[in-house]
């Protein structure tokens, strides 16, 4: 058994990973909650967010704006706008026209869109095949507590991630648009009868979920100091799995699922002999277990068959 400080260090590593997974998972859960669709290009929108953030930072640096206090918020805003609009476009192109088709068609359409986004970055981004260095804009260095190394950068990433989650929570619980999203998630027809504009609500949901993916993309760039056009593949699969563990359709479930997935991956690598080879096996086996034993996830609602 590894010493306690090593376990705590691994748990911290897992939480860092989990925050990014949670932000992606919230998008999946929002889309599923409102439209009952699994938007499989969401992982690539996460990647697009990272590239949009990087491009903004490089553009700002080119005009002499390098100060992180100004550059980083602008990068977040630009990336959220880009992914938000692409998310809305994705809904209008791949989801809405297929509303009356089999759910499999939406799945295929969004999967294809993900491929288009990924390959477009590969082809059109300068030397898109290579991993790209991401500027280190957060404070470096750190301190130790009980043998656990804590980096200032990690604290900042956790802070930004949690702020994003609280913001989404506030938007959903405290705003008119949030009320509309909740209403559509519960019963779209009844919500429309009560005067909710379905199209605008769906647009807002896709903008919100995709914008969160951009936040996750930039945080991933800041944490790993590197982004790559294929980062959305595993990011998407894990984000979706995290949403499924937490309970598809439940925002808090997605957050719990993301954190749990991250901690599961790192602790399995740390505790099981040759665990690093099986970290994904263990994590996805837990997803399967959840789907069998508790299909509605940790915080998911009891599904009701509507007639």
């Amino acid at each position, binding site marked *: 058994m590894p010493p306690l400080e090593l376990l705590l260090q691994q748990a911290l590593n897992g939480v860092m990973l989990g925050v990014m997974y949670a932000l992606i998972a919230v998008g999946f859960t929002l889309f599923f909650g409102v439209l009952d669709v699994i938007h499989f290009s969401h992982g690539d929108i996460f990647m697009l967010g990272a590239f949009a953030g990087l491009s903004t930072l490089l553009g700002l640096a080119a005009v002499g704006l390098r100060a992180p206090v100004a550059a980083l918020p602008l990068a977040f805003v630009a990336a959220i706008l880009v992914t938000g609009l692409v998310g809305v476009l994705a809904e209008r192109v791949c989801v809405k026209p297929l509303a009356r088709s089999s759910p499999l068609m939406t799945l295929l359409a969004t999967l294809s869109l993900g491929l288009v986004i990924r390959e477009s970055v590969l082809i059109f981004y300068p030397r898109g095949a290579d991993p790209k260095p991401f500027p280190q804009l957060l404070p470096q260095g750190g301190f130790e507590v009980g043998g656990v190394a804590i980096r200032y950068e990690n604290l900042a990433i956790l802070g930004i991630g949690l702020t994003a989650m609280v913001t989404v929570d506030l938007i959903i619980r405290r705003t008119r648009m949030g009320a509309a999203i909740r209403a559509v998630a519960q019963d779209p027809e009844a919500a429309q009868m009560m005067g909710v504009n379905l199209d605008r609500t769906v647009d807002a949901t896709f903008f919100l979920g995709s914008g969160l993916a951009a936040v996750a993309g930039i945080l991933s760039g800041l944490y790993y100091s590197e982004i*790559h056009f294929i980062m959305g593949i595993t990011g998407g699969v894990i984000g979706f799995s995290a949403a499924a563990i937490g309970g598809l359709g439940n925002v808090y479930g997605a957050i719990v699922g993301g954190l749990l997935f991250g901690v599961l991956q790192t602790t399995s690598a740390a505790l099981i002999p040759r665990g690093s080879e099986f970290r994904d096996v263990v994590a996805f086996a837990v997803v399967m277990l959840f789907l069998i034993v508790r299909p509605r996830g940790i915080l998911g609602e009891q599904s009701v068959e509507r007639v």
Partner: protein
Amino acid sequence: MSEPVGRLNRRQLLQGASVLGLGWALVPGLARAQKKTVKLAFIGPLTGGTASNGLGGRNSFLLAVQERNADPKTKHHYETETLDDECKPTVAVQAALKASSDPAIVAGVTHYCSVTAIATVDTYHKGGMPAMVWGAVLPEITYSHEYVEITRVNGTMINQNQIAADFAVKTLGFKTFAILHDTTDYGRAHAKWFTEFLEKAGGKVLSTQGTAKDQKDYTAELTRAKADRPEVVWYGGLTPDGVRVKVQMDKLGVRAQFQGTSGIKSDTFNETTGPSAEGALAFVEGAPTEKLPGGKRFLEAYAKAGFKEPSEAYGPFAYVAANLIIDAVEAVGPDRAKVARHLKQTKNANTIIGPVEFDAHGQNTVPLISKYVSQDGKWVLWEDSEYASGKRTLPGHKFKKM
């Protein structure tokens, strides 16, 4: 007055001149039209994590074909078909099947990734298509069979790891190692050979951890390795993953020397890793491109051709493979079986990487392994580096003193 017989009037003169002019203009086209067209395939990772190496290889292959097509002495006109194996065995087998089942394709310059090269060996053999590997280093690609179709112009990982282990232990004086490797055939075999030679050299492996290819997060593995306080973290894998391991090592404060394989020896590693790359070690078969016998000419021609991507470490091997195949087609004609036999018997071929000679298994016997260190964002031959001259100290040696 009638015109004298034997003299040309103005109209006839103009007509004659036009015919001559037209003929002159059409000569090269006609000559090309008379040349038989031969198709060659290139297969490598054009998308995915190792695409930068694949694109460098493809460009080098295309450069060789362009040069040979421009040479009036060439008997055939060469067309190319480039296929993407994505560095994935399943995709590679599909690409190999497509190439080998196309009768127009006479031979191929095939695969950078070991996982794809080993997966397709049987496909080329069954299809009877000569395939010359240009980048994959797994020994089994040439040594696990006796197929006449398979040859390899680059070296294997056996020599590479022997030199790497001896250098780390005997020259640099490191004793304890944490081994990280990707779980593909490439990473596993590298780890196996490196561990074997390391133990023979007197080094000690403290931990061995396999990781998934294209894994993003290595904090768990590095935290585990850090607890053993190794002097060296050795990584057996390719550039994108190597970048992440090195960057995350620094972020987690792992105070150890970073040593990689030929898989990380790319411009992309230095560009992406940034200052973190300083002092990283890598080992490659052959000499640096600029120091190869024809390296300068190759680099100049490559730059002139205006390719977007750099040729990377294995570009010259793809260039040589294409040239050797074209030489074979020129010598024995566009017949797969004859080309395969001819290639297998290659002896002392004069190429830009120096003389190429295949053993009974079709393996080029490259005697030289070059040691590289990352210095100021560039891979520098160890012997030419400021680390070797004593001007700078390797990170691993600095940590030992702390």
